[in-house]
């Protein structure tokens, strides 16, 4: 089965660089920055695209700086169904 695709957004100014997220990530997506943030901490950065959106990093983050997204495949809503057309018709779909 293909792995789920996810993404994380890190609030780098609130991050204190504890590295617990880095330790908790099973996909090694997170590393520490080379530069410090305004508070003087090295902060967590996303370095790989292999995030599965498992939320492990966010669950253990003591400062709640990580937001996690997961790509879900959703059936597109059926907006129109056209059957038995004999002549010319115009269909407009509001969106």
């Amino acid at each position, binding site marked *: 089965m293909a792995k789920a695709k996810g993404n994380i957004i890190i609030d780098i100014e609130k991050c204190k660089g504890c590295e617990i997220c880095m330790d908790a990530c099973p996909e090694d997506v997170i590393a520490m920055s080379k530069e410090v943030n305004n508070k003087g901490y090295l902060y967590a950065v996303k370095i790989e695209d292999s995030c599965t959106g498992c939320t492990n990093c966010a669950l253990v983050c003591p400062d709640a700086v*990580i937001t*996690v*997204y997961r*790509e879900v*495949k959703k059936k597109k809503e059926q907006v129109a*169904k*056209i059957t038995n057309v004999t002549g010319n018709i115009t269909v407009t779909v509001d969106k």
Partner: protein
Amino acid sequence: MSVESLEKIDTKVFERPTTLIDTEMHYCPGCGHGVAHRLIAEVIDELGIVEDTIGVAPVGCSVFAYNYIGVDFSQAAHGRASAVATGIKRVLPEKYVFSYQGDGDLAAIGTGETIHTCNRGENVLIIFINNGIYGMTGGQMAPTTLPSMKSTTSPFGRDTKSMGFPLKITELVAQLPGTYYVTRQSVHKPLNVRRAKKAIQKGFEYQKLNKGTCFIEIVSNCNSGWKMSPVESNKWMDEHMLAYYPLGDIKLPNDTEA
């Protein structure tokens, strides 16, 4: 003709709870207090009880809990949080009342208040953060400090001959008929965080039943006091703290009713 197909949508699966006030917390990097605060905020959000919850903050590192968890709060003198929670709950029985206390607060100076609150079976939730040390004042020995564990007041390690044994106050209050739900959790790994959240949710939900005190211990780290990095302190906690303070439910509602 059918216009059905698959669409890829990015769904937010985790975000900061709204009850956790959008500000920086003063805790040391990696401190478990932050996770515990967030879980309380998540549960309050999900149960929709932000207007109906009153917290009592302790003395200790979490003295400023009221700056972070966005519900009504009182702050108690050292060790007295469960007594203050008792008063609030008795005057406002329809509110969800919880205290949030460290081990120095709850199991040292506040031992009497803790035991009597539980023995009276007050309908409050006590959340107990056990990091085995007085974090705020610089890492002195607490009643919960492990045998041989070093602290600023046991620099050669806790000698149980002269300093006594770590107090398992959670097991102790579970013996009292006044407690309804007693459990020990941790917040150092994703699975543990999920379990701790479930426990906190139960603790709040049970309060509506008026069946007694709910008591949730969260074994936590104090990496500053333990003089370790956050990741090291969580590993040390896993190995040493959890060996003495095993995780799991100690008293379940069915046990009381049986």
